[in-house]
């Protein structure tokens, strides 16, 4: 078994005061081994996004510990977290989150440039070609379709070869054709580059692409399926929601 790329130990996240607060996460333990793809599912308000944010260091946990690529980031200062975002982790979201004023290639090169790393045009073009957008390098996000924008976001996440990719509903705004392409790209990241993915989704077919599916309800991990199928995931989810 590989050492965990992401590890949550007894993590709780409370919103509001201790007396009247709502626990979005309550004593969650989760370990995602390096080179694996983990999907998180659950009904609305179960704490999926909070788990992803806490694991990526975007949100502070109320108690417990978060380890990212072996490093404890629970109380890490801003500069350490900034460094992690530049070199260790990447993000892909439902709303693409591309910088509207930059072209596709500028968007892809942006994280490395902010980190002060020299990046050649060829490298950027290669990354875009890798997601099938070699001919769209000079287009701005608004000139691309939703699927194409998401592929640019994936190329941006891939170029710095992050150890862990955090994905929140990465196919939520895409048609079935684009969804298939994006899932293939994510699978290639895990299989070929040995990167890890922690993904939140509400779609059983998408979750079935992962190695493991973790089910969350009321801030607790309530179930787990390895080598999932669409049918199995849908059945477990239906049971949770009923």
């Amino acid at each position, binding site marked *: 078994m590989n050492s965990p790329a992401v590890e949550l130990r007894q993590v709780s996240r409370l919103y509001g005061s201790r007396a009247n607060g709502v626990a979005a996460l309550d004593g969650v333990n989760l370990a995602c081994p390096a080179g694996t793809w983990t999907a998180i599912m659950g009904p609305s308000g179960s704490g999926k996004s909070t788990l992803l944010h806490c694991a990526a260091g975007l949100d502070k946990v109320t108690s417990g510990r978060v380890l990212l690529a072996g490093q404890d980031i629970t109380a890490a200062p801003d500069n350490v977290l900034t460094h992690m975002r530049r070199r260790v982790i990447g993000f892909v979201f439902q709303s693409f989150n591309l910088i509207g004023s930059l072209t596709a290639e500028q968007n892809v090169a942006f994280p490395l440039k902010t*980190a002060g790393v020299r990046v050649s045009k060829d490298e950027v073009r290669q990354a875009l070609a890798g997601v099938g957008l070699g001919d769209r390098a000079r287009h701005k996000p608004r000139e691309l379709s939703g699927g194409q924008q998401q592929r640019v976001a994936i190329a941006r996440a891939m170029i710095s070869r992050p150890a862990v990719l955090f994905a929140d509903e990465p196919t939520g705004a895409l048609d079935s054709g684009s969804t298939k392409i994006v899932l293939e790209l994510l699978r290639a990241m895990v299989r070929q580059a040995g990167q890890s993915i922690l993904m939140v989704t509400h779609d059983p077919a998408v979750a079935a692409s992962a190695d493991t599916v973790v089910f969350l309800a009321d801030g607790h991990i309530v179930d787990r399926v390895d080598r999932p199928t669409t049918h199995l995931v849908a059945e477990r989810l239906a049971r949770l929601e009923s």
Partner: protein
Amino acid sequence: MVRLSFSTFRERWELFLGAILSVAVGVALVQASMLILIATGEARIPMGLSRQDEDKVREGFVGAATVMGMTAFLAMFLAVFIVGSTFAYTVAQRRRELALLRLTGGSRHQLRVLLLSEALLLGLVGAALGVPFGVGAKYAQTWLLIEIGLLPDGFTAGWQPWAVMVAGVVGAGVALAGVFVASLRAAKIQPLESLRETGAASTVMTGSRWLIGLAFAACTVAMAVWAQGANLIGAMLAALGISMFGAVAMSMLSPLAVPFMAWLFGAVARGNTLTGLVRANLRDAVRRSAATAAPLIVLISLLLGLAGTFASLAAAGAEEAKRSVNAQLVVTSTGIDADRIAKIDGVAVASTQTTVDITVTVEKTQNKRVIEMNVYSGIVAVDPDAYARTHNLPPEVDLSGLTGDTMVTGPARHADRIPVGTVMAVDAAGQPLSLTVVGRMPETLEMGDSFLIPRQTLPTVVLEKGSTETVVRVAEGQDLTVVARRIEDAGFAQVQTVSDWAATRAENAQDGNVKVLTVLMGLACLYALMAVINSVVIAGVERRREFAVARVAGLTRPQVVRAAVIESVAVAIIGLTLGCLVAGAALAGIGGATNKAVGTVVVSVPWPLLAVVAFGSMVVVALTSGITATMATREGPVSLIAAHE
């Protein structure tokens, strides 16, 4: 980050357009004002003028230099303010985008650099535009200063090569100073905010906003309290300070007034769906409302504060002049003809006061060196006995010694501190005299006379050429109007009551101030106009999606536009109200100071100006908002709602 600044700038130029124009106008005005200021220092007095007229031209140069100095200062203050509020607003609007930069690995420092380089770019573009604008502004300002009489005909200000340097430094400096606070706020944005749907800041009244708002409010209150016990010059400076500090304080604290205004609006316009939406928008978009209200607060504060201050000072001057005279009529005439007035039936006492064209040489100690200065203006020949009987002289002034070769220093020379007993050299139409100072008059609100000299001491030829004011006390039991008519019938055309004379005199004394104010008011209006249009346009451009949602929800396009216009007008009312509060504080300060100076509170509120500005700003806001909303709703609502990025 610099490349990103460039592309942001290119992409979202409409966000920065107002700020660029503000910087350009600021640079142009600073550059033009500096050139004119330098030119007034080097200017020559035109040939062939009388010495009094030469003095007037000289005073005009000083006045013009003061106006230019104040213009440059005000232009920079307003430009920093507008750039600051533009960036504060754009940071709030771009929160999601900035958080995204943090999410993709941008550090806090890099975010600060991004905004500072955007500001630098803006400043340089503004400066580049400002230099040619400045050439035009120089001609316009020179024309204006000649037109209002501060500069003589034919005055020109030359071009100086350093003006371009000044423009560049001012442009960049103004933009960087304006963006500084916004860059600090931007650096605090957390990456997680990029995942929020709204993209707008949740807390409007941030810690720094509270701190700056309360600190400036405290300074404003302190100045208003201090002004109560200050002299008039102090109170005037305090009024300027109150207007500026109060404007910043109210702009910072204006989000607190928005919910109250929304409530009031709801109470007035109950039951209408459209006004319901407007009320909800007002409450929801507190930051947007505050950004639109800010320039109006500045406009009203400065305009009403300063106009009210000068008008109050003029009124106080008139009050003081009226009180200084213990008589009923003032007759203005020339030559020595006025001697006849005392003999007219019904006149108890007539004090003939002739302003004469002679030279008094004053010795002044400046930087431990004794310098000689010739005074030509405000030298008045009086009959000391009649003067004392027709004036309420301060208790410390005694004119009984004003006989023979003597003189009394007037209010205008009080600051020179010429001691009693000093012998002054006087040139009266070529006749040298040595007059001993036998008394000193205290300072007054108006500048007043320089020296009083007994009429008998001066040669008749001097008195014949002077202009004369005769202060007349009507004999007891005589009808004022009858006596006035008798004086007119005796060949004196200009007979005024003391009240009218005092008012005219105060108006003339304030004339220079009014001219200065006219220039500054024009400037403040120009800036406020740019800033209001800027914030309304930014708000409109950023609200395209919101307008589309409203249309999808069932509103027609005209209804959406109408709602936007009503909202903007409501915000304008907030700005006007808060601006009036600040101006009120400035006038309260002046009221206290005039009370101290003349024994009664004299406050003059410029109501017509307030009405014109209030109406004008509402029209501008309504028009801009209507046009922007119409343009923002040009596209079909569905295409906007479907777009993600």
